[in-house]
């Protein structure tokens, strides 16, 4: 298999990975196009890390196919890894190596020269002290060590597994800026997360994974227009009971205010009911990614 310009950087079809009787990946599909930031969403145990480990050739899959840069991650792991940088979800450092040593070593193992890299700039931006020993870093700082190593030298593909779970909001901004610079330079990014706000901000397309299967995939807009509207209404009198109306979910009544989510088909009836009840104020907002996410996890997912 050779690589053509139009081919996806990551192409996964029907991937199956079993651990004993448990299916970690159950016919998973995933396609990441060149130059995009692809959000990979799902809670712990959904199979995100297993997918990434399969893409890195660390685990052997039992079915389906996966390619990275058109190559087989199991057979051609080293060739693929020369062109990518990986940040694991839980970064473990070598206890007696300093952060600076670890960054330089990981860069050299990728074939990059630390002296010619943006190492110092990244250390400054992430405000990381490189002289501390590995065991002395907090979770957030361990993650920064891996992020500095990943961002310091250019790569064709960044594989980031929940990379900001230990970072404070300020550092999340630095992280977002680094990702943006990478995409501007043509790097493809696979960003797994359950921090939905982060994916919403950074991703151009996303895949939602549940129990080892991709349940939704598309751009944010494509997923959003299929979904519900969140309403908040206040009333002069008591709030009406909308729970019985078709297409209405998550009803919360607090005195004279009401909150709910409504499927597009349910909206006309809801608006009528609100008018009849004497609505005094009304806000509607598009569903956040959190809500899309919850939707994907509902036991009864529609065929949309």
């Amino acid at each position, binding site marked *: 298999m050779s690589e053509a310009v139009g081919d996806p950087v990551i192409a996964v079809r029907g991937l199956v990975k079993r651990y004993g009787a448990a299916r970690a990946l159950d016919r998973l599909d995933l396609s990441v196009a060149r130059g995009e930031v692809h959000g990979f969403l799902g809670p712990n145990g959904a199979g995100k890390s297993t997918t990434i480990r399969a893409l*890195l050739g660390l*685990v052997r899959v039992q079915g389906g196919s996966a390619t990275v840069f058109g190559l087989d991650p199991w057979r051609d*792991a*080293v060739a693929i890894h020369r062109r990518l940088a990986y940040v694991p979800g839980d970064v473990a450092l070598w206890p007696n190596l300093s952060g600076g040593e670890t960054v330089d070593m990981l860069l050299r*193992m990728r074939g990059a020269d*630390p002296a010619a890299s943006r190492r110092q700039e990244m250390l400054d931006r992430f405000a990381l002290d490189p002289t*501390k*020993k590995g065991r002395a870093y907090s979770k957030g700082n361990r993650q920064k060590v891996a992020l500095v190593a990943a961002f310091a030298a250019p790569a064709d593909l960044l594989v980031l597994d929940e990379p900001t779970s230990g970072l404070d909001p300020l550092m999340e901004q630095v992280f977002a800026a680094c990702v943006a610079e990478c995409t501007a330079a043509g790097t493809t990014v696979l960003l797994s997360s359950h921090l939905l706000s982060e994916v919403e901000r950074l991703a151009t397309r996303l895949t939602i994974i549940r129990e080892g299967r991709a349940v939704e995939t598309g751009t944010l807009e494509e997923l959003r227009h299929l979904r519900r509207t969140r309403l908040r209404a206040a009333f002069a009198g008591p709030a009406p009971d909308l729970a019985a109306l078709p297409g209405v979910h998550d009803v919360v009544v607090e005195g004279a205010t009401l909150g709910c989510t409504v499927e597009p088909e349910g909206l006309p009836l809801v608006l009528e009911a609100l008018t009849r009840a004497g609505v005094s104020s009304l806000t509607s907002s598009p569903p956040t990614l959190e809500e899309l996410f919850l939707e994907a996890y509902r036991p009864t997912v529609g065929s949309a």
Partner: protein
Amino acid sequence: MAGGGGSGIVLLVRHHLRRDRVLASVWLLFLVGVCYASAAATPALYTSEADRVRAAEAINASPGVVALYGPIPDVHSLGQLAMTKMTVVYAVLVAVMFLVVVRRHTRTDEETGRAELLAGTALTRQAPLAAALAEAVPLAVVLGLLAALVNIAAGLPVVGSLAFGASWTAVALVATGIALVACQVSASSRTCAAVAGTAFGVLYLLRAVGDTSVGWVGWLSPFGWSTQLHAYSHERWWVLALPVAACVALVAAARWLSSRRDLGAGLVDARPGPEHGSPRLADAMALTWRVHGGALVLWTCALAVMGLVMGAIAPGIGSLLDSPAARQAMQRLGGVGTVQETMLGAMVSVAGVVVTCFALGVVAHGATEERDGRVEQVLATATSRGATLAATVVVATAGVLWLLLVVGIALTVGYGGAGGGLTGTGLTGPGRLVAAALVQAPAVWTVTALAVLLLALRSGWAVLGWALLGLFVALDQVGELLRLPGWTSDLSPYAHTPRMPVEAFAAAPLLLLTLAAAVVLALAGRRFAVRDIG
């Protein structure tokens, strides 16, 4: 411990016992089993009391043996003769067992962050220390009782057996105290183990000095107290007050130290490291050398000192006594040849087993690196699986060769410096002891290769390498005593090493062992290439 912590500690101890159930049981059974084998086999080895007395006198007359095993206070005592190896040498294994148990529930838990999880609950900050103690003390008592029971079952006197069991319990209590203190010193559990291990080594040497020259020095060491208890003759029960007092003092010291430091930190602040990595630190091999470099330096120093001391002791043996009875006793402990050569042969074969521990430590660490996700990070760079496994194999096998060389040179220098000479066949001159040490390598490599194969099959299995080592040593030590058929001890790779300097150098078994190691490593490499990582 205060208030609501009480029930929490009970839960903690139960949890620890669950985690330790295999390790503690296997270790306990091994120690008690060896004890029983020695107790049961010794009467049959000597036909008359006169024989026994001569053997005991021979042991007492040999500074080398006394330095290694301690003296026999009452030459008429059958129990003391039967427990020659148990009283001190196996007491060291008792100490190591309690270090392992205490460390994994105190410092290791802190290092991995498990302790932080617990500190967030209703437990007091001293709870892990208290829980480790609450597990170790009953375990020490059980160990002592079992040892006493099997000795009684083997026909040794009841009172003496109880005293002997108490000596193991005493060593276990002191070791627990030392381990608790050592685990306060550094944030690294490996450093803590090194501190405690060094303490054990120093205490062992103090006892050796006390037993061979300056008597009072031996009273500074818990291993000396075991001999001074005089189990199986006129027991001096008051000696047991010393380990109990030492244990109480050490536990108090550990509590005080732990109350003066932060969770996860050591007493000694971690020094800052270099800002930049060395250009050589660029592949898995360099990384693995770096990870084990500190340990290798410690091992080198420890083995050099042991080699020098043992080598220096050896020449004195033969001039003091070279009777048939002495020779017979010596052969029980080592092999055949002149008394000095037998002693030296026994020392290098012990060194072979000791050095195996370094290699198994490297292999087991490879499994830890994988479990913690560090191997995954290395493999996600342009590093192949083969290179990762090869790094572990090379550091383990080359480290073994280096450490055996150190042992050989130290023995030669010590022995030569004390005026010893060598007779017999094969390689002659000063190179003979170095060769005697180096020929241990193929057997060590074979055991190492088996551990690597276990790692390659499943990372969690790598620790079974220790069980394998225990089994081979047990076959070697106990097989003869229990009169098991010859092929059982032949299962042990160590059984095929030529016993230099007593026996001549023989290339064939060494080549076969090396070949066996190579084949097992090749299998391991193939398996590691196709299994899931992590």
